[in-house]
């Protein structure tokens, strides 16, 4: 779960990323400005993306001189262990997510003819349909539980499962970034930062096994706390193969 500390890390890392984008795209602009001057900003390309929405593949098509459209799918399956606390108990949690979507996005390069870095700047707007949007957290105690003089092993205490599901599958998307950064004659890459807005609040289900049974009463509390959890930041890099 994000803490104040992790929020700060997030912000610092974001600033570093933006600076790096500016530096690298600026260098590429100096070097390749006269070499790559397409009639249309977006070329017909297959795009592979990697980022916080997972991995994806898209087909990109030019639309007009400054605009294009890309559509495709991305999947985010991941699992990671973290140590957290719940109340007075230290827990070891395994968090996993299954966020699968198909999307259609309109891209627009507002300044394709300027000579600065801004000629690579693009804005995007679209929507995704999430056919699966679910995160699961499985938590177990990190230490044995002591009841009177009886020591109950942490395994016997049981597992608490928390499942967060977005039931409303349609999510508007917007982002800004830099595209068409030169790699080779037919290849380029881009960077973008944006967000999905999940149009429905998440639903939370909790269940416990063994001695953690009954903790499902916490589900409405978590659901209330997460009711404003709508924005899903998307940071990604994409590699384009033009044809």
């Amino acid at each position, binding site marked *: *779960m*994000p*803490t104040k500390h*992790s*929020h700060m890390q*997030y912000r610092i*890392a974001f600033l570093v990323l933006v600076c790096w984008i500016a530096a690298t795209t600026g260098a590429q602009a100096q070097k390749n400005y006269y070499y790559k001057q397409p009639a249309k900003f977006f070329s017909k390309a297959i795009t592979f993306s990697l980022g*916080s*929405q*997972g991995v994806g593949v898209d087909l990109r098509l030019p639309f007009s001189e400054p605009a294009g459209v890309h559509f495709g799918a991305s999947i*985010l399956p*991941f699992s*990671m262990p*973290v140590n*957290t606390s*719940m*109340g*007075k*108990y230290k*827990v070891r949690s395994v*968090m996993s*997510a299954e*966020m699968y979507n198909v999307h259609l996005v309109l891209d627009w390069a507002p300044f394709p003819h300027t000579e600065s870095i801004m000629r690579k700047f693009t804005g995007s707007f679209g929507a995704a349909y999430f056919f699966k949007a679910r*995160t699961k957290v499985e938590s177990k105690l990190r230490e044995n*539980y002591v*009841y*009177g*003089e*009886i020591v*109950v092993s942490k395994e*016997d*205490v049981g597992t*608490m499962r928390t499942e967060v599901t977005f039931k409303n599958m349609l999510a508007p998307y917007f982002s800004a970034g830099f595209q068409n950064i030169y790699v080779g004659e037919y290849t380029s890459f881009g960077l973008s930062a944006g967000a999905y807005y*999940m149009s429905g609040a998440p639903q939370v289900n909790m269940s416990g096994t*063994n*001695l*953690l*049974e*009954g*903790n*499902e*009463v*916490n589900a409405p*509390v*978590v659901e209330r*706390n*997460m009711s*404003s*959890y*709508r*924005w*899903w*930041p*998307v*940071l990604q890099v994409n590699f384009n193969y033009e044809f």
Partner: protein
Amino acid sequence: MKITRCWMFLSVILACCTNPLKDVEVQISTNIIHFSALLEVQDGNGNPLSDINVVVSGQDAEKIYTLGGTRNFNVQGGILTLGLHPDSDPEPGMELRFSIRLDKAGYLSQLISVYMMEGQEQQIIPVNMLPLASAPGGVAVATPGIPLQGGLLPAEVTISSGAQNGVAEETMVTLPGNTTFKDNAGVTIVGELLEATIIHVKPSNPAALNYFPGGSLISDNVIQAPNTAPVAGVFNPAALANVEMRIGSQEVKTFSQPVTIAMQLDPLFYNMTTGALVKAGDQLSIYSYETATGIWRFESMGTVVNISGQLTVVFQTDHLSWFQVCNFIGSCPNTQSFLLNGGWMTAGIKYSLTIEAMMANKVILTKKTDITTKDNIIKINRLPLTGTTIRIRNETGEILATHSLAGSCTPLTTITLNRPSVVNRKVTMQLYVRCPNKTAAVGVLPTFYLYYREARPTIDVSGYKLLGVVEKGYISTTMLTSGTVAYDFKAVWGDIVKYSHNKVVAADNSATVGEGEGEVIGVIDPQNNLEMLKEKCKEYGL
């Protein structure tokens, strides 16, 4: 890689302001112990006893804790809670056993054998400790004193329990002249006064028979001389007596020469060997019992003689203990299960029952339990090979079934319970608990035993009957009359016994234990209750 994962995770957990775990209270259930036994310790007059010294012993004693998870065994409000360590839950076909010794000044000590087996997670065992100064009807207690000369009895003396307190029969002990008295180590005791306690229990009096040593006529610790290995069996006593003597502070265990004991028999004794009422010339077994060991030992056979119109068995012994003249019947080697049905029973309701196993018109074992239409199997071990009858009463004492077991050691018997004369409407009770300074009620509620009685003055703590086991704060029952009758309740949770007095119940009742408006914190010692609530909430991190 880890950094990448963290980024992905942070992205998935959509950035926002509220900690998702704010106000989340993780609770670990207190229902850690799966097998429990509740000893209801009373004085035989319906009064619960406390301040009792408790010692747990036996082969599985080290696995036994209180329901609070400690080894600090205390009888509170007449209740001793015992629980099995969850790592030792019995497998199918396996039985755990241990003994509870109860000692209290002014009362006869008891050693109770407790068994735990798969399928019997909860059991309630009634235990009666005999108050020597106020024995109930059916028990004669005499405490004669005999002058000695430097520890020597100068001339023959006969002492008796006396015909008293509803007991026409007596136990008489004749000590020959020149007898000296020895302690447990065989050392002669020197003193000027021999203080004796002779207790004669009338076996045909059911209340008196509750004092039977070990709490049940069934024992798995019977040594049939000349064999030395204990066997299991069931007694049918014709006479039962306890003889104790002391000189000063030292207990007499043996004598320099045999003493003669004459035990007058209950004329209502049904001799299972002859199939008729006892008569002169019958042969009966004589057994002795040491409370310290819990072992019944065969002494000899005795012939019934008629002395002055009283059927009597006379024998000699060189030691003191409990003695009985009886039939002894071997036990079934297998567990016997009883499936209890009743067309009048409603699904989801708990019915509190008393199960009595009987032989020769005597209750040989009493169990209290609650059943539902789904959880309705009772298991009993060591029932006699023949002659068993199962009698089932409801909480008011009304007999719902009397079933003679036709076969020998039948593994499963179905018993139909007759409809009680009064079946109340369903009453449900739901208890919630809210910790101080918290908005939400506790989600994980304890399982505890709940007793009830019709309301009485609070100073009177007797007469509570089992309402049932409240599971996760909820119980549904037909034992209470809603709307008109005021009840007192006694709840036993772990080591804690709490009372709630003079409550009229509705059909559906819910209450929240807490300090807020409209919540319940109790009228007896509310400050202590609140402190206890705070302490427990703190203990469980709430």
